[in-house]
Every structure is written in C-alpha cells, then in structure tokens.
C-alpha cells in the first residue's frame, strides 16, 4: 500500500488543493501547515502551468499569481522538500512542464551525444526522479489521458510514485476499466462536467460515478465543485473515500485576509463533514473498502 493509499485507510480523507507559490513560497508553506492542522490527509499542491485548460477561473487566477511571483518547477520541488508536514504531497500539474523538465535534461544530454528530439521516456524520467527526491508521493496530470500516460506510468513505477487518474462523468465503462488498471494511489472522481471551481451543491453525477467505481479496489476521492462540509458529508455518505477541495480554498488564499486561520477552519469543517458522512454509510458497505 502506497503512502497515498494509506492516507485513506482509517477514515475518509480530506485532500485540499492550493497552488504552490500563490502568492509566494513562504505563504504556501504556511498554508499547507494550516491545512494539515485542520485535518488534511493528503496535500494536493499545484505546480503552475501557463495554460491550465482543466481549471476554472479561480484556479487560473491563482496560477497567474504564482507565475507572476516567479514560481518554477525547481522552486516547486525545493518547496516540497522543505515542507515539514507528515501527510503525503501529490503534485498536480500539466504535462508540458513534466515533459519539458526532462526536455532540458535531455537537451543537455543530446549536446553530448548524437542529438535528436527528446522522447517522452527521457523527458518524464528527469521530472519524476526529481519529484521523488523532493518527497512527492504522486502525480495528477489532468491533460494526460490514460492513452498518453505510458512513459509517465513507467517512470512513476520506477521511482515509486503514484499516478492518479481522473474519472469523468463522461467516462465510458471501457475507459473506466482501462483507467483503473493504470491508476494508483487513488482514483480522482470528477464530480461534474467542465472545469474546477467551487459550486453551491453536489452534482447528481457524483453518485452515479461512485456506483460505477464500486468494484475498484482503489480509494475514490471526489473533486470539482466541493466547497462545504455539507458537500463532504454527502459525498462520503454516497461512498467516496475522500474529497478533493480546491477552488473554495484558493478563494480564501485570494482574499488575503487571515488566510492560514481560515484555511485551517475550512479544512476542519470539511473533515468534520466527511466524518459525518461516513457515519451515514450502512455498516456492510463501510467495511468494503
């Protein structure tokens, strides 16, 4: 059982998301500590990419702030390795940063050797290796569908990282099987169509998606639109093993007021909701995970 999987073992997991470097590196460290104090079981830490096509406006703006602040992949890995928290960190980013991080390594290598285009295999390995060194437990790459994930999956296996995949409301059963075969750590259940962003209620798609995933052994964490303890309760009671909360927290970061304190209390609210939700699950089901 990987570090990530283990985080779901005892009780429903709270997976808060913030963007690294929003608005600065020290703040991010402070916010992560606050979230852990509030009850976070896993920290999903965004490595900002300039074209975040899977994210809604809230997180786009956070990414913009982080990039304006000068956040780079190297800074990110240094930040992670300097985090003094005892929960696993999963890195959420887009594929080009992973590919290009390796690309730079490969370019240096190809100057020595016979040249040529860097291949995926060379590209991702450099990033995964560095991430593993920094203490990253797993990766979420929202623009990397299972079809294109081969090289990254191999590298993650080699360096002991989990590779988390997203299951969307549109995912067919055939794709679901393919994805769950490749996924590790947990399955990220996308609660609704579209992009990330806090919503006022839980999408009806959530229950269907969880039901379709009942047979999978991996923990299932629901994200996209989760913003309140009540949502967490409902989602966990519907069978989820955890909730991912991003935009609602990034909103707090964006406000700039009492951020750490409010993050901690929001995390506590969400964690508490998740625990309540667990109580509502009939006994036989609860033990099935």
């Amino acid at each position: 059982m990987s570090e990530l999987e283990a985080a779901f073992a005892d009780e429903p997991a709270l997976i808060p998301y913030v963007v690294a470097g929003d608005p600065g590196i020290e703040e991010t460290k402070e916010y992560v500590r606050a979230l852990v104090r509030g009850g976070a079981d896993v920290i999903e830490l965004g490595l900002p990419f300039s074209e975040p096509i899977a994210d809604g406006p809230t997180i786009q703006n956070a990414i913009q702030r982080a990039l304006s602040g000068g956040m780079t992949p190297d800074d990110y890995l240094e930040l992670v390795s300097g985090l003094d928290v005892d929960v696993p960190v999963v890195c959420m980013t887009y594929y080009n940063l992973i590919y290009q991080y390796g690309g730079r390594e490969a370019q240096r290598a190809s100057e020595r050797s016979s040249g040529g285009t860097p291949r995926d295999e060379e590209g991702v390995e450099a990033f995964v290796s560095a991430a593993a060194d920094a203490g990253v437990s797993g990766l979420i790459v929202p623009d990397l569908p299972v079809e294109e994930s081969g090289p990254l999956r191999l590298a993650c296996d080699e360096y002991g990282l989990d590779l988390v995949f997203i299951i969307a409301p549109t995912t067919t059963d055939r794709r679901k099987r393919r994805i769950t075969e490749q996924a590790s750590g947990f399955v990220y259940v996308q609660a609704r169509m579209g992009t990330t962003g806090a919503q006022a209620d839980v999408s009806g798609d959530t229950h269907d998606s969880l039901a379709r995933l009942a047979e999978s052994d991996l923990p299932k964490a629901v994200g996209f639109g989760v913003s309140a303890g009540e949502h967490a309760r409902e989602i966990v009671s519907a069978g989820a093993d955890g909730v991912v909360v991003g935009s609602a927290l990034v909103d707090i970061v964006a406000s700039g007021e009492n951020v750490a304190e409010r993050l901690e209390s929001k995390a506590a609210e969400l964690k508490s909701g998740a625990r309540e939700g667990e109580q509502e699950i009939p006994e036989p089901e609860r033990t099935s995970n």
Partner: protein
Amino acid sequence: TKFGEYGGQYVPEVLMPAIEELQSAYERYVLENEDGFMDEFRRHLRDFGGRPTPLQRADALSERYDREVYLKREDLLHGGAHKLNNALGQVLLAKYMGKERIVAETGAGQHGTATAMAASYLDIDCEVFMGRTDINRQRPNVFRMRTHDAEVNPVDVGSGTLKEAINETMRDWATNVEDTHYVIGSVVGPHPFPKMVRDFQSVISEEAREQIRKKAGRLPDSVVACAGGGSNTMGAFHNFVDDAEPRSANRSSGHGPRDDESVSLFAVEAGGSGLTIDEDEGVAPHSASLSSGQDGVLHGARTKLLQSGDGQILESHSVSAGLDYSGVGPELAHLVETGRVTPVNVGDDAALEAFHRLSKLEGIIPALESSHAVAYLERAAQRAADGSSGHDQRDEADELGDLVIVNVSGRGDKDLDTVIEESAKRGIDAAPSMEVFE
C-alpha cells in the same frame, strides 16, 4: 494518433469520450464518405464557398523574379480566407454527429467568422470565444460574427488573445461536450483534429495540383505558404507531400539543377521583429515555432512550441494577428523534423512590404498572413542577388526553382487599418501616402 513523435491526445479525461466519438465520425464520414458526407461537403464548398478558387499566373511577380509564379487564390473563398474549408467541414460533421451546438475559439476573428457563417448556413447554434483584447482590436470581425447570429463570449483572463480563447473554448467543451462540437480553427489540438482539419483544407492542394498541371504542364518546383497554426499550410502542401516525380528537362534551365526531384515545400513563419526570446517577460517577438520552437505539449498535442526553459508557454508576436500563435500543427512539426518541409521566416517589415507589393503589382490585397508567403519570394531573390559570388546563398534561392505556387490564404481588407498604421510607424517605403484625407 501521431505524426512521428508529434500529435497525440493530451486532453482532460472528460473530453476523451468525445474525442473517440469524433475519431469514429471522422473515419466514417470523412474517410469513408458514409451517408455521402464528403459529397455534401464538396457541394457546399462549391455552391456556398465558391470553390474551386483560381490558380492565377502572377505576371508581374513572374517577371520580377524571373520564374513562373502562380497564386492560389484562397482570398476568393467566401468569407475571404481558406478558413471556411475547415469550418464548413466541421460544422457539417457536427450535424452528422447529431450535435446541437458549436463552439469555436478565434484570435483575429477569421476562424470565428468562418464558423459563424457555416453555422448560420447549416442552421446550428454557435458560440465563439474571443479574448477581450482581440475583441477590441478586431471589431469588424466581431460585427460579422454577431451579424451571423453567433454569440461572442469575451475571454478576460491573461492577455485576452488566441491562447486564452482556446483554453476557454476547451473549458466550455469540457462542460458541454455531450451536445457540443468544438470547431477548432487550425491543424492543431488533439487527434483527430490535425488530420481532419488537414483533410478539409487539402482541397487547396488538390485543386492547385490539377490546375498547375493544366496550366504549366507539370508539377511545381515549390509551394510556399505561410504558417501560423498551419491549416492553410497543410492544405496547400498535403497533396504535394508525396510528390517526387521527375520533372521535365528544361526545369533546370533557369536556375541550375537542384539536388532532389520532389516538390519543395516552404512554410513561412512570422519572424516578427526578430527571433530572440525574452524569457523574463515570457515573450517571443515572433511566432516561428517551426524555426525556433522546442518540442512540448500544448492544446492537446505534442508539437513545436515557443516556451521557456521551464515549459511555460510564451506569448508570440507578429504584425499579423492570424499568425500570432505559440504552437503549430503537429504534422508540420513532423514534416519539418523529417526534412520534407523547409521552415523559413520573414519579419514584420518584409511582410508589410509584400502586402504593398502584391496590392500594387497584381491588384490583390493579401491578408497579412499571406503577405508572409509572398514576402519569401523577395527574400529568395535578394539572397540570390546578394550571394551571386558565394555558393551557399545561391543554392538557397534556387530551392524555389522555376515554377512556384504561393498560397494567398486570404484577403487583406481586414488588415488595412493595421497595415496603414504599422507602415507609417515603421516608415515602409512601399506604402502609399494617405494624404488624400484632410
């Protein structure tokens, strides 16, 4: 799903089922002409679009450059550019797929306009995403889209230009994918878009190939097309990519023999104001992804990109809004990588000069995009003149050969304001005086 190392499907899972559905529809309707799709498509291109477009011998340019120069007149297509070929194909495909809604991104507004035209013609709802900056600087195209009853959704994030508009359209598509088709505007995006858009655009080279055979009695020595995303480029190149047939003996009479016997393909990128990148500002002063980009993944495909060492995408720049894009179609990247296509570039000033040259000499006002292709003729001639004592440049000029097709991908009415302003600012000699206004 790849062209060599390039291409692929780098999109969120929520879109993958739609991509699979599109792949299937592409194979059935486009490749296999199921339900007569391609017949209907070609009928619309003819009756609504005005195809075939002429292949015109450019008499003044031919004399100026001492070679036979032919212009493929995509500027005469309905809407004023090659964009309709693709928009019409995809909107029709969306209807065959039972979709009820079209979304599209647009930068300069040409693709948005073409899509809005096609959508109103084929009677399907259409929403176009356009950056706020572009909306304000391309008002006439916004008017046109609205006049065709398309919604125009402003995109306020980032620099408010094409890149952001694509991101936002992908987000809308991810939200409404079940009843919505995303009409992407170039040979970019996840597979099968690059192949499909190329196929819709390849009518350009299909016609040109037949026309040049009829007019000149043989295949051209070279085809020159501008390249931003690359849809007119692939359209103009596609049916020549496999051509390697021997030419008539007299083809070498004017400029000496060349090394190979294939049709040379020149993709002319926007050199902007220079090829040096300012990484600190995240800005490239050009749009020459093929010439100077690095491999990476953007908007669903692996291709050549303008990016920082970290992999952040850079803002590109060109006086031509339609070439102003940080990526390029993956198939072009592949053809460049394999040596089949030669990437070259001309800067803003040379493009402006070519705009005026074609307008004055041939009675055709080319789009600023297309002006880059026209400008390459001059560049080649200058190099031949400069290098008459040295061998290297001479060879480069001679790559164009005796018989050249230049793709005039669109008309330049839309660019007049920009051209007048920029020509005055830069002191372009070829620009006419506008003193007629008091």
